[in-house]
């Protein structure tokens, strides 16, 4: 295990560490328990051994009441005592004739089972009083056995338990780390795949097949994010190309016509004409650049300041007043239904409505009425501009609000339209925290926006306010 893998940052390391801690706890508990029980068992075993000896000796002296026979008993006890002193005997008696006392130290042993130290060794003792018989008074019989063999057994047992525990801990930790690594292998594979993601191959996606279920959701979400990024990236790229194209056309005109004008002497009138034409192109450039800057601000998340209560119907009427001549020229009348109040920058929103109406007039097909409906919608206010036209394919509808997007490529170089009208609408609506929409319904095109908040001016359904276009006076 490398130090890095144990670092809490690695999941495999963390899991291995947790396995190790868990195993250590279990091993220590088990080890202590085994060692404790075994020690007790050894102790019991030793005591039993002493007890067995005691029964034998007890039987020997219980019915020995004759002092003449006692030395023979002493010899027997002597022969029972091994040379290494592993087992020792002592018989205490007030009457000196019935004594067997090779080691004074044994006299210290208390009745029953006791532990005493002498000769640098540890002895377990068993002491019993044997009742008087014939001439012999009561004697105190002590048997001592050296605990060294049992202590050695305990030591071996302890070392064994400890060694087994340590090996178990090490093994389980290693295995844990290995298992975690194995379990996390799909993550490693995903990391490798993710490292391959780059702007040159935008279509690359993370695999979602053969993945653990825990990762499928994450990867699906991740791929969704990649989809959106790819979309934005491609839009930006095509947008840059569009900008270059839009600017190149007027620039080309400017350079070309200026060069032509200067290539030979010309009178003032001709030169003036060139300057006027240049000015028109320059003004077009200025408009495009201003709109682009404006939209860049909206993209950066700028929000409209100077908010005031604005009546959408009022704003629509004011805008329609401005566009009056265009409505007349197109032979289109305007119908405004409903009203709603929003908090908005009136001037900005006016521009959005102007562009929507202008767009409706411009792109209507066989259209006699442009209908503006303003209605509350889940606490928001929705303004829709409806005209006859279309049908517009779904793919185009989604892109109507894109910069420089034109349904009709042939109109590309029309002077009036620079293809930013609806993009500006979207930017303005975004700056007010709203959303734009475009739909096709029954041969009608409905384009508009939904703005948040605002109180509805009147709960009562309103009669459509119809502006009749007066006939153009000759």
């Amino acid at each position, binding site marked *: 295990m490398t130090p890095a893998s144990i670092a809490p940052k690695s999941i495999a390391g963390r899991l291995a560490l947790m396995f190790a801690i868990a195993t250590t706890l279990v091993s220590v508990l088990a080890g202590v328990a085994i060692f404790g029980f075994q020690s007790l068992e050894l102790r019991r075993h030793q005591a039993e051994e002493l007890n067995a000896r005691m029964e034998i000796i007890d039987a020997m002296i219980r019915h020995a009441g004759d002092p003449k026979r006692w030395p023979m008993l002493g010899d027997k006890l002597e022969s029972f005592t091994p040379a290494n002193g592993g087992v020792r005997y002592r018989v205490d008696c007030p009457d000196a004739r019935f004594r067997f006392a090779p080691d004074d130290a044994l006299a210290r042993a208390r009745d029953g089972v006791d532990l005493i130290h002498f000769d640098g060794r540890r002895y377990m003792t068993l002491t019993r009083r044997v009742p008087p018989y014939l001439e012999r008074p009561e004697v105190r019989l002590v048997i001592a056995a050296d605990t060294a063999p049992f202590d050695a057994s305990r030591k071996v047992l302890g070392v064994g338990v400890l060694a087994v525990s340590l090996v178990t801990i090490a093994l389980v930790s290693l295995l844990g780390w290995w298992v975690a690594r194995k379990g996390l292998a799909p993550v490693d594979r995903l990391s490798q795949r993710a490292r391959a993601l780059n702007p040159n191959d935008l279509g690359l996606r993370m695999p979602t097949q053969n993945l653990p279920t825990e990762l499928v959701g994450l990867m699906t979400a991740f791929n969704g994010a990649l989809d959106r990024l790819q979309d934005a990236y491609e839009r930006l790229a095509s947008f840059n190309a569009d900008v270059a194209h839009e600017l190149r056309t007027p620039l080309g005109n400017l350079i070309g016509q200026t060069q032509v004008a200067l290539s030979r002497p010309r009178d003032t009138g001709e030169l003036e004409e060139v300057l006027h*034409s240049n000015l028109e192109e320059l*003004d077009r450039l200025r408009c495009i650049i201003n709109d682009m800057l404006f939209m860049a601000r909206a993209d950066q998340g700028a929000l409209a*300041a100077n908010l005031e209560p604005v009546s959408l119907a009022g704003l629509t009427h004011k805008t329609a007043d401005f566009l009056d*001549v265009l409505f007349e020229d197109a032979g289109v009348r305007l119908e405004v239904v409903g009203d709603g109040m929003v908090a908005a920058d009136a001037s900005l929103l006016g521009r959005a409505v102007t562009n929507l109406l202008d767009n409706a007039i411009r792109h209507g097909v066989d259209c006699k009425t442009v209908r503006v409906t303003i209605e509350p919608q889940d606490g928001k206010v929705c303004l829709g501009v409806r005209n006859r036209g279309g049908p517009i394919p779904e793919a185009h509808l989604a892109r109507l609000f894109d910069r420089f997007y034109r349904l009709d490529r042939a109109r590309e170089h029309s002077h009036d339209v620079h293809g930013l009208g609806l993009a500006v609408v979207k930017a303005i609506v975004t700056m007010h925290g709203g959303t734009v929409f475009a739909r096709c319904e029954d041969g009608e095109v409905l384009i508009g926006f939904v703005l948040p908040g605002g109180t509805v001016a009147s709960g009562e359904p309103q009669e459509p306010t119809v502006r009749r276009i007066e006939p153009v006076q000759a």
Partner: protein
Amino acid sequence: MKILIVEDEPKTVAYLRKGLTEQGYSVDFVGDGEDGLHLAQTLDYDAIVLDGMLPGLDGVAMLERLRQTRQTPVIMLTARDSVDDRLRGLGAGADDYLVKPFSFLELLARLQAITRRGRGEATTITVGDLHLDLLARRATRAGRRLNLTAKEFALLAVLGRRQSQIVSKTIITELVWDINFDTNTNVVEVAIKRLRAKIDGMFETKLLHTVRGMGYVLEHRPDGSPE
């Protein structure tokens, strides 16, 4: 009418100076804020055209210091189309602002507005044989009443008040319809076309002229020079 231009971009200074001088203004210019502040504090100007981004003392800082002693009208020019800059400029005491790239005509219009120049309080206007009665809202040409709609009359009045001056589409939009944003529509062109049909249609001498790329002029040109 004395104007001070504080601007460090030589080409901008050159054309502003030329254009404003030709419009009858007497123009001084300096290239940085320190000198600008000094001149503005020591001489009496009718208006100051102040660039927001200057080397050394920047426009807003200069304006803040100027406002401690003087109330000379100031038009700020800001290169960045950012709300903060505008608010900072207006907060520091600018009377108006223009976002670069701006149109010269617009600068001229705003200068006239803040110096109260060219705002005749006349109630009648005469351009050649065209007469406007602003109180009665009546227009006649060669003695014949012209049948104008309210907006057409307003448009004619805007041009008449500035007769012989080029009036840009932006200014027309603002003054006639109270719309103060770029619209990218051809409303003004269409409205002018209609007005022209009514005031010039039946007459030999044309009064309403188009200056391509700039705007419109209401002017009597006795020699009948072409547009």
